[in-house]
């Protein structure tokens, strides 16, 4: 599955350039954060890596494979919550895998304990709050023991305590040996979580650097402007 390599990958719906000439290599550990302004194509890139969006331009490979395998999991900004119990929702991702029903429920329960939702296991999942829904979606993804977890702005519109809980879970998933690739607008969150940052602007990867280096000394002007606009009270770079 690793390294995941993108070479000259582009995306042009109806002739309009969203992504162009994306060259990127992702290794199998740590948390990589995809940063960039709205509409720059972060979600499209994530969907390509998940295998949801066909690559019409360039080449995308997952190790030696030309398509992702079952070791990829993804959590969306608005996760799918079925009209079923929290436990059934947590066990859902294991349905296509070779686990018996009892094993699925045991593992789902274990994951719910890890994300702090074990006491809600029998409740209807649709009654959960936004933060609890994201924790449930993370538990569902974690339960399949993925090697790559893709997160599309998992904390958008959550309150600070919910964000904190979700970030703790993401760290736990990383500690379990899973590579995490995540989009976010939240620079504070990126500084807390990222091992490396991939900065997208104008449809291209402008920078791919270790997080400390990226936030201390961004090389591209686009990255500098983005960071200064988002955190003007914290960061002033020498021009």
């Amino acid at each position, binding site marked *: 599955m690793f390294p995941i390599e993108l070479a000259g990958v582009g995306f042009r719906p109806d002739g309009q350039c969203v992504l162009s000439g994306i060259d990127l290599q992702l290794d199998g550990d740590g948390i990589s954060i995809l940063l960039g302004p709205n509409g720059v194509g972060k979600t499209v890139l994530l969907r390509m890596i998940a295998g*949801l969006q066909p690559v019409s331009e360039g080449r995308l490979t997952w190790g030696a494979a030309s398509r992702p395998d079952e070791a990829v999991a*993804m959590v969306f900004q608005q996760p799918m919550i079925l*009209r*079923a119990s929290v436990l059934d929702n947590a066990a859902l991702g294991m349905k296509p895998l070779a686990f018996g029903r009892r094993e699925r429920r045991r593992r789902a329960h274990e994951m719910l304990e890890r994300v702090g939702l074990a006491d809600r296991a029998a409740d209807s999942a649709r009654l959960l709050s936004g933060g609890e829904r994201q924790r449930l979606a993370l538990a569902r993804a974690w339960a399949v023991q993925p090697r790559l977890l*893709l997160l599309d702005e998992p904390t958008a519109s959550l309150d600070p305590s919910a964000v904190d809980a979700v970030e703790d879970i993401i760290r736990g998933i990383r500690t379990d040996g899973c590579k995490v690739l995540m989009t976010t607008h939240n620079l504070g969150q990126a500084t807390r979580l990222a091992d490396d940052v991939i900065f997208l602007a104008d449809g291209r990867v402008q920078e791919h650097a270790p997080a400390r280096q990226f936030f201390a000394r961004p090389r591209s002007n686009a990255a500098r402007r983005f960071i200064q606009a988002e955190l003007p009270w914290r960061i002033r770079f020498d021009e």
Partner: protein
Amino acid sequence: MIDTLFAALRLLGSFDRTLVDIVWLSLRVSLTAVVLGALIGLPLGAWLAVAEFRGRNLLVVLVNGLMGLPSVVVGVVVYLALSRSGPFGSLGLLFSPGAMVIAQMMLVVPLIAALTRQIVEDAWREYAPELRVMGFSRGQSMQTLIHDCRHSLLVALLAGIGRAMSEVGAVMIVGGNIDHVTRVMTTAIALETSKGDLPLAIALGIVLMAVVLALNAAAFHIRRWAMRRYA
């Protein structure tokens, strides 16, 4: 008019044997047709919702169009198929409740399939990316979506029951309206009205309305419970 109504109520109150037989046969035929129709219509609709193939849109339009299939046309087709010289004549089903079940099933399958397709397709649009990443096959996706939409799909089943129970043309043709054999509520109402025996026709009409109302009330309460339970 009032006398007729009282006579109808007396028939109902005394559990008149003829009336009970007709009601029981109607329920048996229509509910069997809907159960069998659901076994075909639900998966067919769900498959149409998630499948991608050339000609899918044409098939969707066809299934939607068949919702308005005239029952007498179905009656004639089933009659021809089951008549002695027809392809299934050797089964000896013509003028039996079995023939009526087949005719009603043919009427409810497109209705259930079309409504299921619409309900499941809306859910599929929302869930498809996650189910695909999880590696769900089409069959597993269909199963998951049908289960998730189960309360909305009740409406499709109700519509099927309504269509089956209120239908008169097809069962008249393939059943023959034989007393104590194939006479159901709708055909009995038509016959008794033409004979001028209005009390029985009105009593059967009251039962028919009561059954439809009871089913709708049950569906309403199930949906309300589901809304509370599953938000």
